[in-house]
């Protein structure tokens, strides 16, 4: 097996709901891939295709080298899955539910379930309907991790978890990777995957708009520039410079302040500014959250070198 997941030209259209459009993506064994996109972008659709719950309109999927629909049982034996909202019969106790789900996999050691529950501070004797959303999600996390699957497919795994437990979850993901497990996790929050993901794939409206390493995304990010001038300056002087967007010039009592975003070389902007007396200069990398947000909205698609054209 060379690739954990291969999606080729995957298209899914159904009803009036938004599906996927010619999505191609590969996940390598042993890597953690963060699958990012706003709600409704097609993240769950992708995951349900990978589980064989639905079938693509066109295109092909291979999970662990197998067809997830035709070879569903073989694939499912080797994966762990968690949905964003972990739903089971609420009348049962957490331990009862986990023992049953473990038995569907041929049995999971009691000790292993106990360890994970302790770590997540989950009370196994509680009835599921009495648990908060976050605690219910912990039951889901235990069932996804308990059999140490080769591939973890996690759909919005941290929804409802408090920040402390989110960190515990991220530690569990890191450990899974250290054990050679592959992790595919979706989220709509960049910061959630930033610290653990080797690579990030961003989708919007059912299309892949970017895939890169977290470091690669950082180098792609725009500079957020602020220049203070001793005297007023005209905005027109800077507006047409290459790479400059979101330009604003505001007058201050000492002169003027220019703010803009900058894509690419700062040379032209620096030379233009040098014609005036510069009293302050501040340039920051746009944070990833902002960059990620830029991918969401089409008017900022210039932010991404590989941003797809969107109808």
């Amino acid at each position: 097996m060379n690739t954990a997941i291969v999606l080729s030209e995957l298209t899914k259209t159904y009803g009036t709901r938004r599906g996927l459009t010619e999505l191609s993506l590969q996940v390598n064994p042993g890597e953690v891939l963060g699958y990012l996109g706003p709600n409704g972008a097609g993240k769950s659709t992708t995951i349900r295709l990978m589980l064989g719950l639905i079938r693509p309109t066109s295109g092909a999927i291979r999970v662990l080298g197998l067809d997830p629909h035709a070879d569903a049982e073989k694939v499912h034996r080797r994966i762990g899955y968690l949905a964003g909202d972990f739903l089971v019969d609420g009348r049962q106790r957490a331990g009862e539910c986990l023992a049953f789900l473990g038995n569907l996999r041929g049995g999971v050691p009691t000790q292993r379930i106990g360890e994970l529950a302790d770590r997540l501070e989950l009370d196994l004797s509680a009835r599921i309907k009495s648990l908060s959303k976050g605690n219910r999600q912990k039951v889901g996390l235990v069932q996804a991790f308990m059999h140490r699957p080769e591939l973890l497919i996690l759909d919005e795994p941290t929804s409802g978890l408090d920040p402390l437990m989110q960190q515990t979850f991220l530690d569990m993901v890191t450990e899974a990777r250290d054990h050679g497990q592959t992790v595919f996790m979706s989220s709509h929050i960049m910061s959630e995957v930033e610290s653990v993901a080797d690579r990030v794939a961003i989708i919007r409206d059912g299309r892949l708009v970017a895939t890169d390493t977290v470091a690669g995304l950082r180098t792609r990010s725009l500079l957020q520039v602020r220049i203070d001038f001793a005297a007023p300056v005209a905005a027109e002087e800077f507006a047409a410079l290459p790479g400059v967007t979101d330009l604003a010039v505001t007058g201050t009592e000492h002169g003027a302040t220019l703010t803009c975003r900058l894509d690419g070389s700062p040379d032209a902007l620096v030379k233009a500014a040098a014609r005036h007396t510069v009293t302050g200069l501040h340039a920051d990398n746009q944070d990833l959250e902002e960059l990620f947000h830029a991918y969401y909205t089409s008017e900022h698609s210039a932010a991404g070198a590989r941003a797809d054209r969107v109808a």
Partner: protein
Amino acid sequence: MTAVRNTAVSGPALPGTSGLSRTFGRSIYTKTLFDNRRVLAVWALATGLLAAMYAGFYPQLTADAADSVPEAMRGFGFDDLTSAAGYLQGAVFGLLVPLLATFYGAATGARMISADEESGYLDLLLAHPISRTRLLLHRIAALATGAVLIAAVVLGALLTVRTSAELDSISAAGFTAQAVSLALLALAFGALATGIGAATGKGRATVFGITAGTGVLTYSLHGFAPQIGADWLRHLTPFHYYIGGEPLKNGLQLADAGVLSAISAMLIGLGTWRFSHRDIGR
């Protein structure tokens, strides 16, 4: 060598599990039964109790009352209320019990696939190494077990009141044959509901509505067919195969039981086939 499976059952008990829940948590079939134990018990006890109660009215029935049955009710089995078998085929096995069995099938069948698909639990179950076919067969087996339980409790209740209710003219074999037919009837409607849910992915309420509606419609058809001079229409309803051969008097009618079983098998087969080929939706 004995196969030792490293199940959650072995070793120290997991918190939140009881011996019973561990035993029943070993397969989808047993887990479904365990999760539905209370509602199953209620169905069985209520049906059994009502059957015994109505059977108990038989000694109080006078010839006058029997004569005053309107003509319209004859098709529903109220044509001979003077004999024990006639009475039971009218009030008990002709009306109350089969309709309860029909609703048991519709309600339980609507839970087997539809309810879990609606809630999203089906996604989780099917992400485990179980084929859709196996899931559906386990669920149907649990439903069938419930149907047998209901029929057994009804049988037990009637055998208990048999002498006191002056029903001795009916043999235990006759009661048993009627109970078997009852279980098969409940299973047929259970298979219909489960099959519709599995094949279409419709919600629980819709599946229940369609199945219960089909039940009431075919029951009425079975009852009214003789009045409109179209007895043959009865053969299109499951109720004909349930009681048409008068199992209370004649014992188990193998052909009729076969037809009911075949209907269930066909519905399950079609449902399973569609279920394996369609998209699971939320």
